[in-house]
């Protein structure tokens, strides 16, 4: 009897879908750019849960440890860190020049 033998992969997928939808709600409803970033982080976490869960429930081939999904999850982690740093730098820059970060009012490029 191993760690998650009592569980199947479906509960993890439902949970990941729920987290993704919470992130989608945040992205669609918020006007503050930082809050939108919070929603994006939630969506990235949902994707990572899927990667690790599929990695864990994969049929093992041979003796090699199955870690491909975890490697992808770690790369996603690095990209999320880079994305958060760049996004916050942009937000600070916009706040510096326009004194607000309400995304509805940032329509300088609107035709």
């Amino acid at each position, binding site marked *: 009897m191993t*760690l998650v033998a009592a569980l199947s*992969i479906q509960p993890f997928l439902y949970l990941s879908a729920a*987290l993704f939808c919470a992130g989608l709600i945040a992205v669609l409803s918020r006007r503050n750019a930082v809050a939108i970033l919070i929603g994006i982080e939630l969506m990235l976490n949902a994707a990572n849960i899927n990667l690790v869960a599929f990695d864990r429930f994969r049929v093992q081939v041979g003796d090699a440890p199955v870690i491909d999904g*975890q490697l992808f999850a770690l790369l996603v982690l690095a990209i999320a860190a880079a994305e958060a740093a760049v996004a916050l730098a942009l937000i600070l820059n916009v706040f510096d020049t326009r004194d607000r970060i309400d995304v509805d009012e940032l329509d300088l490029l609107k035709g």
Partner: protein
Amino acid sequence: MTVANIPDLTEVMPELIFHALAALAIVSALAAALAPRIVHAAFALMAAFFAVAGLYALLGADFVAFSQVIVYVGGILVLLVFGVLLTARTEASLGLERPVRRLFAVVAGSVLFMLLAFAIHGTTFAAAGAPTEPLATTEAIGRAFLDPEGMLVPFELASVMLLAALVGAAYLARRRRSS
């Protein structure tokens, strides 16, 4: 390469642990999406990150769980809180004044969740077998990331990309005197 078995502390009631972590994750994620104050949303996001890290540990991905805590809670969340503190000056920055838009967002999220749940429910994952034995993954991850036939190139690309992104962020965030 020998991979040692890690002691399995969750043989009793893995389902209970899963449900507790899942409930914490979903409640705090919804709080992060809907909290009227951005700082509260950031702290709810911290709870969600910890719950997801617990789920990684439950899945046997110990290294990913610790990376999740270090990178997300220790790095990204601190950045987010700094962003909130440096920009939240006006009421307009709170962000949820329009109930119509919030309603639309909740409806869209619920519809998407139902579609996803329908798809998950209707799919049989034929290749998903019994879960593999829990292993100590740190050594395997290190070897895979430094294996020239494996993930070495993506790993190095990710590190270069991270460096470029951080240099670019530092350049963008510097304070301008003009205007």
